[in-house]
């Protein structure tokens, strides 16, 4: 049997592919693309939440938010490392992000306008992310699968934390309730979009299914997200901003309204509310940090030289 056939057979048997194993070039490339996109999303995702660290309304929330953003940085780190096992360097990955060649999740191109957005982002965005990611804990590429196990555990904690922010607001003053509803209004549709274009417009799907990089279609994931989230909203007295939302007894699922795909593509193409800001922030941090990274490198080299001299 060819290498390729052996490889495919391993995947079918649910064996994990490891970094040193033979793999088709396309598998490698597709994984680099998806994993780096995922890593970039974690890193860019630090910005909209980081925006509220200095203004968090209580010390408890400030600490929790810091911890959450730190977790995201940690996720970025695992995922970049997993990506590096496929023979691409961190610098190359950053280069792809900064040049706009690599994508990241479009949701992070929306602004966090009020404190309630910290709740909505945790509840909805992390909620949608988990739905996307849980199946990846069993994906075929070992380093990715293991990273996802760790990521998912933390994400579900973040989601609960976000939902808890919303509970607190909806149990609060009328102003706080309004703030919570407003956040839901603004984040609902972008969260649905987060699960990707409709199946009709989605590319790469079949191949990705085979490699277990994708186990359900975008539309199925979206339906799952909606069916899971609507009761959570109802429970805390919030209204989903979709007049067409209705329980479909027959399907055992919610019917929902039309998604504004024009907005989705505008944001994906780089014209969302914060695309420019996010890239400015990332590129700015990278450029301002260059002398620091250079210094760390130079220092490490000096230390190495000294050690070698001592050893002689």
């Amino acid at each position, binding site marked *: 049997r060819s290498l390729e056939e052996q490889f495919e057979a391993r995947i079918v048997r649910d064996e994990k592919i490891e970094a040193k194993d033979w793999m088709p070039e396309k598998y490698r490339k597709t994984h680099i693309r998806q994993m780096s996109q995922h890593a970039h999303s974690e890193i860019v995702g630090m910005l909209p939440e980081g925006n509220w660290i200095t203004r968090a309304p209580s010390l408890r929330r400030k600490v929790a938010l810091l911890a959450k953003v730190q977790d995201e940085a940690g996720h970025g780190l695992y995922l970049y490392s997993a990506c590096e096992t496929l023979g691409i360097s961190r610098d190359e990955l950053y280069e792809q992000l900064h040049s706009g060649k690599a994508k990241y999740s479009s949701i992070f191109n929306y602004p966090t306008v009020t404190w309630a957005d910290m709740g909505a982002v945790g509840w909805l965005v992390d909620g949608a992310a988990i739905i996307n990611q849980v199946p990846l804990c069993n994906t075929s590429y070992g380093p990715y699968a293991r990273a996802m196990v760790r990521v998912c555990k933390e994400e579900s904690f973040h989601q609960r934390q976000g939902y808890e922010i919303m509970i607190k607001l909806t149990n609060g003053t009328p102003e706080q309730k309004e703030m919570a509803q407003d956040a839901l209004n603004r984040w609902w549709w972008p969260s649905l979009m987060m699960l990707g274009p409709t199946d009709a417009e989605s590319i790469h799907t079949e191949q990705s299914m085979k490699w277990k990089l994708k186990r359900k279609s975008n539309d199925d994931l979206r339906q799952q997200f909606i069916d899971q989230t609507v009761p959570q909203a109802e429970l805390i007295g919030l209204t989903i901003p979709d007049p067409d939302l209705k329980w479909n007894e027959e399907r055992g699922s919610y019917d929902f309204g039309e998604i504004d795909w024009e907005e989705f593509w505008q944001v994906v193409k780089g014209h969302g509310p914060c695309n420019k800001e996010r890239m400015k922030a990332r590129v700015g941090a990278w450029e301002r940090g260059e002398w620091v990274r250079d210094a760390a*490198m130079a220092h490490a080299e000096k230390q190495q030289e000294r050690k070698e001299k001592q050893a002689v």
Partner: protein
Amino acid sequence: MKNDNLYKYILGIADNSLILGQRLGELCGHGPSLETDIACTNLSLDLLGQVRSYYQYAAKIAGDGRSEDDIAMLRKERDYLNVLLVEQPNTDFAYCMGRQFLFDVYHFMFLNELQKSTDFTLSAIAIKSIKEVSYHQRFSSDWIKRLGDGTEESHLKMQTAIDDLWTYTDELFHQTDADKAMVTEGIGVDITKLKSAYYQKVSDILEEATLKVPESKYFQKGGKQGIHTEHMGFLLAELQYMQRAYPNMEW
């Protein structure tokens, strides 16, 4: 307040960590590398965690119904008692690390003594915090060495930062009336006794980092009397925004 001196003493400690934690929080997502971002967030987390214990204790002592958040976020600028050092802005990474280092060395020595406080709560907080702060000190000292003994550019930047921040170090050892009262009661740390060890330790590390120990004999003060630099008001405007705009709510 019955325990006015103790209350003020706690605020003096807590405000340092609160304001430094807030400054570190600003950096989040904007640092020179993912690893430093994680580490700086960690410093901020540790400090703010410690801060909560202090303010909860202060709230108990005040006993006027104010919560930790009320005390942390609803005072006027003139009532914040942190040293000027910790409120200095994130000018660049050399300033961030310089500020951190100059504070960490003090903070470690301070907590080391505070462990022996006859006040059980303060001693417990100190015992819990000192492990974290020992790591902080290692982290910032390492960066001083890396940047000092890195490239020519980093050396220059690190030296500039140390020269500028040096003027705020003396204040660390100024005793307020509350400090003196607490020392007498065996609760507080006699910071005047830490001064020479502090400058020795700082100088050792600066020298290891190939940096010059500043010679200036002019120092700034004021923070411990609530007279802050012009940076402070803007920091507080952010820190307090939600508590001010939405008073008396739970979050």
